[in-house]
């Protein structure tokens, strides 16, 4: 048992505790600025009108949906190779956030689709692969929750995410290719609405906000998980006494 393995959670717990408020406030501020720029400053889109402003939610969340899964894959490697418990906990903490962003991307996309394409859902390549990504998240969460023994749940989840991450690119391209094989009803998403600099700025800031939010939430969850897992260990007991 490497020393790191045991010291990590205990030392990480207070650290995370200190960092959470910072990331939290950053997220909040960035979100306010981003939304302000996006909803009020940015000019109206010449062809889509006001609806297009949904992009300031849609795109950042869609990005996060993908990034977070990659992040989890990274932690999965750590978990399986170095058997660090903290990485497993981080996976468990990130998964719900990733799933949420994926869901939001789907949701906003669907809402956006109605006015622009006249339908909530078209089996566009990107939509489809995002949907599948959601399935992957759900599968991971279901597995980890279903397994009673935490040690085992960690490893099993890690293995699943790893296998999944190998498939993600294959899935993405297969879907893209499948969709273009017989031209579907969907409009290509990136079709040219020239993005004003201000739009890009707003979107970038929103993306930043999402990052900060994810980190803050993940840290909160990881703290909760640590408490739950190490409930009986000495340092946790001392904390609890300190609290109460």
């Amino acid at each position, binding site marked *: 048992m490497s020393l790191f393995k045991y010291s990590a959670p205990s030392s990480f717990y207070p650290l995370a505790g200190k960092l959470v408020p910072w990331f939290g406030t950053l997220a909040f501020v960035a979100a306010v600025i981003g939304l302000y720029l996006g909803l009020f400053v940015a000019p109206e889109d010449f062809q889509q009108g006001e609806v297009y402003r949904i992009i300031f939610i849609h795109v950042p969340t869609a990005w996060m949906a993908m990034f977070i899964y990659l992040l989890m894959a990274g932690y999965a490697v750590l978990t399986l190779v170095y058997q660090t418990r903290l990485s497993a906990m981080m996976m468990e903490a990130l998964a719900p956030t990733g799933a949420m962003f994926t869901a939001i991307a789907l949701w906003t996309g669907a809402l956006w689709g109605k006015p622009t394409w006249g339908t909530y*859902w078209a*089996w566009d390549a990107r939509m489809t692969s995002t949907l599948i990504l959601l399935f992957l998240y759900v599968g991971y969460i*279901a597995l980890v929750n*279903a397994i009673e023994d935490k040690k085992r749940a960690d490893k099993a989840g890690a293995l699943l995410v790893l296998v999944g991450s190998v498939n993600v690119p294959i899935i993405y391209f297969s879907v893209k290719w*499948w*969709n273009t094989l*017989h031209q579907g*009803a969907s409009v290509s998403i990136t079709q040219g609405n020239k993005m004003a600099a201000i739009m890009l700025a707003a979107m970038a800031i929103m993306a930043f906000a999402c990052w900060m939010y994810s980190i803050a939430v993940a840290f909160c969850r990881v703290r909760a998980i640590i408490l739950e897992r190490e409930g009986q260990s000495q340092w946790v007991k001392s904390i609890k006494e300190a609290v109460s």
Partner: protein
Amino acid sequence: MSAVLPRANELTTPERGVWVAMRRDLRLAVRSKGELAQALAFFVIVVSLFPLAIGPESALLKRVAPGVVWVCALLAVMLTLPRIFQSDYLDGTLEQLALSRYPLPVLCAGKMIAHWLTTGVPLAITAPLLGLQFGLEGRELMVIVAGLILGTPILTMLGAIGAALVLGVRGGSILMALLVLPLYIPVLIFGAGAAEASMVGVDVTANLSLLAAMLLIGMVVTPFAAAAAVKISLD
């Protein structure tokens, strides 16, 4: 400890038996986290597989939507059937149920209800979302939901019989599928039929009332059939 009590069977009424069996299974379903969500997730995923296999033309998809939704609901219910008796059989609980103070049909009824609450109901609630993916509209969606509400309990009840018959048989799950699917066909035809009818604007009450009739008959007969099947498997 040796206080004299009334023979317990005066206390063990049938309703109570239903409740005992149902509570037990519901608690188990809640305990093994996500079990409730699983039938659902399976349903959603398999439905979403079809566009990937058939192709994205919305017209075509809308055309086949009701059929696909119904077949997938049917499969989702079928996949969860082993839950009803399998683990109870393996760990010896089923023998205890059979020898309990409550008549077996009563307990089976309770188990069926629990199974329906944890599969059929969630399916019926989610079906509309999937329908939207395929471009179905309000009335069509409502008919699908109504059909599922009436149809899924029948699937559970018929399925329970099959599930009981294959207990202790290797490769049972798929053998069960073989026994059960033919019995499911009428449900499928009436249910999907109603949905199709709603799409072409034909009256749907005929189909639905047929489902309702099957449901009523099933409620009377199947608990006894399931109990008989359990007895056969236990000997």
